[in-house]
């Protein structure tokens, strides 16, 4: 456990933050609810609930009797805040303690934070400083060390750069969302101290947003004749106008951020005219226009800087550098004015929004702890708060009720429920024996909620309450699950065959719908014979396509196309399955802007003669190939079975050919079923043995490759290896020979690449090619020449050159005939 404080909090007037120093630097913790690094310093009291941060800020000004912000300005005064909802009085210290406690919840590392550095403004006197300390103790910290904000900021900059060069006087220019502070710091090898400071508690980024709205947006809106009527609404501050003003403020904030990096932004607005018809208005805002809006405010800030320098009898030239703190210093004009008016170097090398907390954490890293953290008590089941909970595991509603019956004494306790994705938070609520809480659910997903029980100091206590998971929308207990995978047949051009792509996996709950986006795998000519075939199959996704049952097929005749359908053009295939299992398939061809659709009834079977011919042809090809191999291996038992299958397949093929003229409905289904059963039998034949063989092959190759990669330390090969191995489990579980073969091929390809890129590999390959007879090369003379050059390169040990020569020789060899190439492959046309 660390002996230094390490943790630091920037307890700001507008926003606060918490950070921890680590060996590698500083971690600024993020709010688990929204992943922002800052928390608005606002506290709200809603009946028996306390909310801190963003949600409270939304209500600031709307409910002034119960929601409080900027209480930091009142620290150390006798001023109090009366909470109407609870009829209690809260001090600025108590309100600050709520913010500090909330910041503690940002610490996701599970560490107990007993000691902390808290920053205070340079202007804070002893009473105000002590009040801040008191807030820290009230929040449950056992040790609080204070640090002035400008000093913290200086530390962040000093530790980020070269301290010796910058020794001297620094100006800390801190322009936040609502406040402005400037301080002069003196920095040298021994110490860092604040000489003097100035500030304005009512100047910041929010003022700039208002100026953009009033000076630019409203001017443009009122000058539009259709919207001129809004001027009167503005003067009367009608509800409609206030709604519009909020939208404009949000747009202004967005535009302000963009103008920090762009010269011009376009703001799009849709505003109703007097008759309620939407008028679109685009306002182009240049950085110059924005600068004009805020120039006066920034000049005033510089006046304060100059006053500060004069009061301290300093010239701008006496200042070594200006360091920028606060989010509003991102505005380019801030830096431009500082440079042009004061002619001082401006340093913006540290993130201005977190500079104070980062510097404070760096300070905390060197500050010895005075209190020891008591070891966390191991949760004892006798001491934990016990509760019975009940809630539905799934829901179709947007909110669900959670019942909590506390069985332990929970007097002076609180509870808080938060959704794991950050979308729901009850805030801190008084615990009562029976709690009934409505939880808001995110749509179509699993919603996990965490229930925390807190003691009087708002620290979590152990409970027996597990994490709560409610599945929304997707699960309907009355829904029917799919008995098999529903797949789309697509082409695999590398293997000259088709494969299955799962669209709806087995056990998906009906009804279902999905759009699949694919490309056309071959050009389909209007005057050609090839059709585009959308074949939807039901069965096992890992089996051969021909073993599955076709449940819907759309064959797009080329004559129906408005133009040739070019290879690579896009296809959209939408599939919808109703609860009664009717399948609707819609095919949209992007290139021709044509749509084809069909509803397939679940009680009918769909058979395409074209697909059947294609499938049978492939089946016969594969059986023949296997038969030849088994005969060579003298596996007579297997060969006999394969011969039977071949005979059956050829008989079915003959039947299809005969059927073409006399095809009756029943006959077609019968032949199709015969083909499917044969394909299933063939797929299963020796499948186990083939899978075992492939698995052994895979693991042996994997082992060899791993060793080779470890030895040569090739990072990109290691990455490729990792990517292949990552999907290993999925493939092994799949029971698909086809997938296994593909996976082994990937390893083989990596192995080949490593071989060819190694010196030993290229030497070996050269020797193997150089002993080949010259007559085997397409240009004998050139081959002899290359072989000579190779010999010389080998003698010089120039393996790069040898590699080029080997490739040249390889190009002179005739291309290998693809052994397994199935010449008659037609496919579906879907890639």
């Amino acid at each position, binding site marked *: 456990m660390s002996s230094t404080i390490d943790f630091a909090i920037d307890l700001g007037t507008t926003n606060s933050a918490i950070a921890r120093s680590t060996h590698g630097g500083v971690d600024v913790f993020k709010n688990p*609810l*929204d*992943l922002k690094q800052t928390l608005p310093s606002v506290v*709200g009291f*809603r*009946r028996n609930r306390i*909310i801190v941060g*963003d*949600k*409270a800020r*939304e*209500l600031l000004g*709307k*409910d002034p009797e119960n929601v409080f912000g900027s209480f930091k300005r009142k620290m150390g005064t006798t001023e109090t805040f009366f909470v109407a909802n609870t009829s209690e009085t809260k001090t600025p210290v108590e309100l600050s303690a709520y913010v500090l406690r909330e910041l503690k919840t940002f610490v996701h590392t599970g560490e107990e934070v007993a000691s902390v550095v808290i920053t205070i403004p340079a202007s804070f006197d002893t009473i105000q400083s002590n009040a801040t300390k008191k807030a820290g103790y009230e929040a449950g910290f056992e040790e609080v060390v204070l640090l002035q904000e400008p000093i913290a900021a200086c530390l962040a900059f000093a530790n980020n750069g070269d301290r010796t060069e910058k020794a001297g006087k620094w100006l800390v220019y801190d322009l936040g969302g609502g406040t402005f502070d400037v301080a002069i710091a003196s920095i040298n090898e021994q110490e860092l101290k604040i000489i003097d400071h100035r500030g304005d508690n009512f100047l910041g980024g929010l003022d700039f947003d208002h100026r953009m709205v009033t000076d630019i947006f409203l001017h443009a809106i009122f000058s539009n004749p259709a919207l001129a009527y809004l001027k009167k609404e503005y003067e009367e501050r009608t*509800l409609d106008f*206030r*709604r519009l003003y*909020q*939208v404009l*403020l*949000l*747009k202004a904030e967005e535009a302000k951020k963009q103008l920090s990096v762009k010269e011009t932004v376009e703001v*799009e607005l*849709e505003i109703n005219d007097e008759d309620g018809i*939407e008028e679109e208005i685009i306002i182009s805002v240049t950085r110059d226009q924005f600068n004009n809006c805020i120039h006066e405010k920034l000049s005033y800030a510089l006046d304060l800087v100059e006053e500060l320098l004069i009061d301290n009898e300093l010239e701008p030239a006496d200042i070594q550098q200006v360091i920028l703190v606060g989010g509003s210093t991102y505005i380019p004009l801030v830096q431009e004015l500082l440079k042009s008016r004061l002619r001082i170097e401006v340093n913006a090398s540290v993130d201005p929004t977190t500079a104070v907390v980062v510097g404070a954490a760096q300070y905390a890293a060197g500050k010895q702890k005075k209190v020891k953290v008591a070891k966390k008590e191991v949760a004892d089941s006798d001491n934990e708060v016990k509760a019975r909970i009940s809630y539905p595991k799934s829901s179709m509603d*947007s909110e669900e009720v959670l019942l909590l019956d506390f069985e332990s004494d929970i007097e002076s306790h609180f509870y808080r429920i*938060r*959704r*794991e*994705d*950050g*979308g*729901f*938070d*009850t*805030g801190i609520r008084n615990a009562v024996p029976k709690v009934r809480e409505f939880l*808001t659910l*995110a*749509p179509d*997903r*699993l*919603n*996990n909620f965490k229930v925390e029980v807190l003691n009087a100091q708002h620290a979590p206590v152990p409970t027996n309450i597990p994490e709560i998971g409610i599945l929304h929308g997707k699960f309907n207990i009355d829904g029917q699950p799919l008995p098999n995978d529903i797949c789309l047949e697509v082409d695999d051009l590398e293997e000259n065959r088709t494969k299955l792509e799962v669209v709806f996996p087995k056990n998906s709950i009906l009804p279902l719908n999905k*759009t699949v*986006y694919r490309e056309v795998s071959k050009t389909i000519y209007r005057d050609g014979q090839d059709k585009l075939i959308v074949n939807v199959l039901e069965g096992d996704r890992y089996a051969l396509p021909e073993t599955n049952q076709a449940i819907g097929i759309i064959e797009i005749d080329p004559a129906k196309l408005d133009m040739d359908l070019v290879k690579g053009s896009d296809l*959209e295939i939408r599939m919808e399955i109703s609860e009664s299992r009717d399948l609707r398939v819609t095919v*949209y061809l*992007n290139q021709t*802007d044509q749509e084809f659709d069909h509803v397939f009834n679940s009680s009918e079977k769909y058979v395409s003669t074209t697909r059947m011919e294609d499938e049978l042809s492939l089946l016969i090809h594969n059986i023949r190939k296997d038969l030849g191999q088994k005969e060579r291996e003298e596996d007579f038992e297997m060969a006999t079975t394969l011969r039977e299958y071949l005979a059956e397949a050829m008989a079915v093929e003959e039947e299809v050919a005969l059927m073409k003229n006399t095809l009756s409905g029943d006959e077609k289904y019968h032949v199709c079923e015969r083909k499917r059963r044969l394909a299933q039998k063939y797929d299963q034949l020796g499948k186990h043995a083939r899978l075992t063989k492939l698995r052994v092959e895979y693991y042996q190759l994997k082992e060899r490759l791993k060793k080779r990669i470890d030895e040569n330390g090739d990072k990109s090969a290691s990455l490729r290896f990792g990517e292949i191995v990552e999907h290993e489990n999925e493939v092994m579980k799949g029971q698909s020979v086809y997938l296994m073969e593909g996976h082994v091929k990937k390893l083989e390809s990596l192995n080949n690449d490593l071989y060819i890129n190694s010196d030993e590999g290229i030497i070996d390959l050269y020797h193997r090619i150089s002993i080949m007879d010259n007559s085997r090369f397409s240009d004998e003379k050139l081959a002899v020449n290359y072989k000579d050059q190779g010999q010389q390169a080998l003698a010089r040990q120039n393996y790069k050159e040898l590699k080029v020569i080997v490739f040249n020789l390889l190009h002179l060899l005739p291309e290998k005939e693809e052994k397994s190439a199935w010449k008659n492959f037609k496919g579906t046309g879907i890639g």
Partner: protein
Amino acid sequence: MESILGIVNQIFEMEQKLASKGDSSGVTRNVNRMKHYLEEYGYTFYDPLHEDYNDMRTDCEASIVGDFEEGNMYISKVIKPIIFKEGGETPVIIQKAVVIVEKKA
């Protein structure tokens, strides 16, 4: 991350425009396609328009127009949608919706 959020927000705006102004040139199809690709990267968005609003909804950043009356507020306008990123066991909200909230009539 910022750029992805920007793209999602633009798609959301396009959807809103198509819904209010009609889609005479079939752009909806392209928008759906873009949504599909974003989903492949784990990004989905959700429009909470007209839903009830209370201050426990930390999936929205609300600007409240008029008075706040607990239990009687709704989302009257959505400037930016809620954006989820799939990752790990459950998705996380990477952008809260930016909404205008007002009292129900």
